[in-house]
């Protein structure tokens, strides 16, 4: 963490700090490709001497996707971390919701006891009338043996907003986690997730859908460490990039020595619709074990002429067809939204991109 300006430039302006080497993938590639990490400038609102409530210490061992610089920064900014424990063998009906507005920062720790089940929602939809602002969420989850965790992440901020979302999950024996990510806009959206499949037969299923347009910067870093035997990871990414959006996706499946019988699969599909789009992908498999299977595949391109011809025969122009692909992301997000806060984020994201008239279309 580099201190850039600890003294406020103006009376009402927060000082800023620069976070370097954020969202770092475990294995690096050529630095000149500028895809190994991202550097972010964030406000430093804390004051010397402030004391915030922190999580129980067992959360300190949870690796988070955006890295230690973001963890330290959020912990220094979030007023009172929130700790939730889901008792053993119970199923929590109400989701744990972390709703973030513009400039809000939240730290959350969830301990899901053995055999318990919970739904967690992070909904970030900062609006500040086009003004710059930064919101952030740090979520750490410990899923004990046999626990079930359903995690929903919704991000839909306006073009002036920067959002940081760092998630860390550890899974005990037979624990299962499903992650549903919908990234629907913002000025800069940086998201990192690290999932440690420490227990035998634990599993993570992650689906990420995104739509980025304008000059949005979308930076994603996701790491699954498969330590336990017969663990399983399924990662699927599907996105649409328009205008001059810049996207970097780093995924790492780490098949650690001893993880016999582990399987990790990752797939990405990117639809590139803008002439000034920059799409960077670094899908990594690290393998230190022989009795494992690791696969990844990526398809990057535009709508094929055959698809366009088919849609044209149904009366859809190229622009209509491309809009249809983008809209599908929002519809899927809305369809799976588990709470009002998530629904509101989708609708706000759609309205920001395509105007308020579409709100009614999507008001399910």
């Amino acid at each position, binding site marked *: 963490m580099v201190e850039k300006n600890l003294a406020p430039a103006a009376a009402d302006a927060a000082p800023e700090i620069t976070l370097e080497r954020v969202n770092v993938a475990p294995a690096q590639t050529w630095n000149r490709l500028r895809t190994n990490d991202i550097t972010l400038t964030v406000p430093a609102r804390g004051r010397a001497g402030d004391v915030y409530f922190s999580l129980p210490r067992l959360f300190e061992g949870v690796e988070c996707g955006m890295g230690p610089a973001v963890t330290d920064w959020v912990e220094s900014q979030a007023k009172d971390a929130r700790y939730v424990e889901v008792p053993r063998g119970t199923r929590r009906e109400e989701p744990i919701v972390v709703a973030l507005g513009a400039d809000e920062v939240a730290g959350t720790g969830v301990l899901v006891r053995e055999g318990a089940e919970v739904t967690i929602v992070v909904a970030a939809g900062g609006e500040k009338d086009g003004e710059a602002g930064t919101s952030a969420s740090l979520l750490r989850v410990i899923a004990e043996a046999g626990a079930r965790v359903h995690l929903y992440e919704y991000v839909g901020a306006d073009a002036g907003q920067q959002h940081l979302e760092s998630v860390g999950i550890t899974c005990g024996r037979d624990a299962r986690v499903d992650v549903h990510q919908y990234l629907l806009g913002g000025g800069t959206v940086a998201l990192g997730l690290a999932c440690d499949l420490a227990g035998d037969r634990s599993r993570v299923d992650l689906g990420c859908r995104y739509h980025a347009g304008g000059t949005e910067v979308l930076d994603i870093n996701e790491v699954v460490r498969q330590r336990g035997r017969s663990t399983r990871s399924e990662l699927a990414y599907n996105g649409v990039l328009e205008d001059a959006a810049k996207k970097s996706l780093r995924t790492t499946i780490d098949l650690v020595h001893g993880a016999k019988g582990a399987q990790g699969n990752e797939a990405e599909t990117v639809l590139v619709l803008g002439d000034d789009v*920059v799409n960077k992908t670094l899908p990594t498999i690290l393998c230190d074990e022989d009795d494992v299977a690791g696969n990844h595949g*990526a398809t990057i391109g535009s709508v094929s002429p055959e698809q366009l011809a088919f849609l044209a025969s149904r009366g859809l122009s190229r622009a209509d067809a491309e809009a249809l692909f983008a809209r599908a992301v929002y519809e899927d997000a809305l369809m799976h939204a588990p709470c009002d806060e998530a629904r509101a984020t989708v609708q706000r994201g759609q309205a920001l991109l395509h105007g308020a008239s579409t709100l009614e279309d999507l008001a399910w």
Partner: protein
Amino acid sequence: MSEERKRTQVADVDRSLYDFTKPEEGYERYDDGLTPEIVRAISEKKDEPEWMLEMRLAALETYHAREMAPNWGPSISGLDLDHISTYVSPKTKQAKSWDDVPEDIKDTFERLGIPEAERESLAGVGAQYDSEIVYHNMREDVAKQGVIYTTIEDALHDPQWEPVVHQYFGTLIPPTDHKFAALHYAVWSGGSFVYVPAGVTLPYPLQSYFRLNAAGAGQFEHTLIIVEPGADLHFIEGCSAPKYYEANLHAGAVELFVKDGARLRYSTIENWSKNMYNLNTKRATIGADAKMEWVSGSFGSHVSYLYPTTVMAGDRSSCEFTGITFAGATQDLDTGCKVIMNGADTTASVSTKSISKDGGVNTFRSSVVIGRRADRARCSVSCQSLMLDDISRSDTIPAMDVRNATAQVGHEATIGRISDDTVLYLMSRGCSEEEARTLVVNGFANPVSKELPMEYAVEMNNLIKLEMEGAIG
């Protein structure tokens, strides 16, 4: 010993084929380390033009100033340039007949099968022993077509070719490219200069073979190939060294200029010994409608950084990269390729295989960059890794950077092991477990070996067999 007997030895995989050494008595060996005096001495010995000496000295400064990236690949902390001699030369002049090559050096290349290959299927051969080329020859009928195949040193002394070398040398891989490119330009010695005139197709390949015999030494050959418009060349490069217990270094550079409508196939089998740091740089730039084909096999070395790069500058150009890497005990091989697609309607295909066993570490690393001008570019990347035991390691780190909405990129990678069912099936047909596994590994490598010239395919299969010996139990 008859020629026939020698070939039989190759087929049977005689370990002494690569791991034999020759005494260095009478050789000229410069002091270990890297100083301006050593650089000047190399330049003076070669009687180079002033611009080359200036380039060397500037590169030396770059080398000393440049830091290694802290987040890069396998460690090379065991490499100490203060204990490497950058120039070792046998006391012989370059010969055009094998009869004029000193007996011990001739014996080395005989055992590697080079003269025999030349007689049977090559248009020309260059053989480098430590820092200098000791043999160079080309068929007369090929020379009559205007093809030039010589050393960089000889080209620099030829008034016709010196300006050409000056024009191209160090432009595709600049000395500032990375630390070991700078080292290369400071102390380069030997290598090949090839010029194929427009429209000329060579009926047979040219081959350069690099042998590093000296212990604690470096080899820094430079290969510069210019294939003019519409011409066609297959160039083969082979490398080997005996095993020592002190570090050797190979930091060569290969610059390939493939002009409009031309085709170049560049085949390599790198079989360095397992004390070698192989930090080699290869790069090609190809024009409109041109085709670049890389076939690469990496077997030896202790640590490798090897990523042949193709800059697809011309429209409708195409590139194929086919590679295999076999990492055994004590080896950490970081290999792959880079493709930069700048022309419209360009196509690139990357297919690699890697095999890890006995604690060997393989890293496949690639980058595909599709620039804004590369309308309708198509690229596919396939990487398959085979793990033969649970003490080895295999990583794949492919990067893609797409900046054109009309481009299409496909990528796939798989890592796994030989299934027990397959081994069991082959054993039920009478194979031992070792034979069954070797059979599967050979089958895995087959798409690469079939792209190699016959001699090299045989060598590759033998190397796999050699590596697989004792793999079971």
